[in-house]
């Protein structure tokens, strides 16, 4: 059991924060989404989402692109290759821990 407990400390803390986990989940499932969609899906305020996205971008997990759809400006976010790998690693590790808990 102790090794699994030790595994918990190796969980990626950037992803482990609930708001960032939500953002990563949405981007992982949707492929790409803009700021407004993420805000609605995650139930975060503009400032909160902004700061979490900045943190994820800083870590290299999320790529942010500003572009126009017609005259409408959009901030489109998507997971980077590094972000996808980190998210998959995180979910696998969490699943292993949960398996032990449920045993």
């Amino acid at each position, binding site marked *: 059991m102790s090794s699994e407990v030790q595994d918990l400390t190796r969980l990626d803390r950037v992803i482990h924060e609930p708001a960032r986990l939500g953002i990563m989940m949405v981007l992982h499932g*949707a492929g790409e989404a803009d700021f407004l969609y993420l805000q609605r899906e995650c139930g975060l305020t503009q400032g909160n989402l902004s700061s979490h996205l900045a943190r994820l971008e800083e870590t290299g997990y999320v790529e942010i692109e500003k572009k126009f759809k017609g005259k*409408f400006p959009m901030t489109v976010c998507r997971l980077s290759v590094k972000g996808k790998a980190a998210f998959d690693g995180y979910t696998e590790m969490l699943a292993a821990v949960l398996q032990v808990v449920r045993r």
Partner: protein
Amino acid sequence: MKDAAAPQSPGKRAAAYWFVDGLPELGFGVIYLIWSGLGIVWGSSPDQHWMKWGVVTAGVIFLVFFCWDRRILDMVKGRVTYPRTGYVRPPKDAQPNRPDEIVTLETARPLDENVTYFRMRTAFLFFVAMQLVTMADMTSDGRAARWAVPVVMMAAAALEYYWSREDARPYSLWSVPAIALAGWLTLAWHLSPKSTAYFPILIGGAWLTTHGLWTLVRYLRTNPHPQYGGAQS
């Protein structure tokens, strides 16, 4: 009419979001309505050769929309939907023989869940129904076309319900019988076999347009344009 079922995963929610404004249904529905309208008029008065070109043009427009629906709708949504409720990647076409894998916590999620069958099944089905009625017309010298419509539309209704159950845009058991019922109602309309062949896309067009309009009106009412929303608050 049933709302898009609340899907569990973010990928399925993203796929359902494509239909939140009813524009995909409205797009296919309106094209089918125009195409069938022109086809029925042309079938009733075949001497009007200019009408033939109208039918051909409508067919080409359908083909263009069928091939580039996401690109075209994405442009429209850029004005209607994205400023109101945001943008998410349009869903890809689902693989027809994708195995129904059970996703558990122990497995990673290799599947792309932002997918839909709408274009390849829901919208295309009425085109196939039209082809079937045309074939029935050709093989029976026009005698079977009239009765082929209700039979084909009953099958279409059953397939619409069955296929859409697991899709991003499900249709309720109260909605699809309208397709079958409309098929039977066409028996009261005596037209030439050539016109009768267009009944499936007329029914499909009316059905899809009704769904699309209803969804669009409801969406616009619940999500006012940001500049108006801002002015109110």
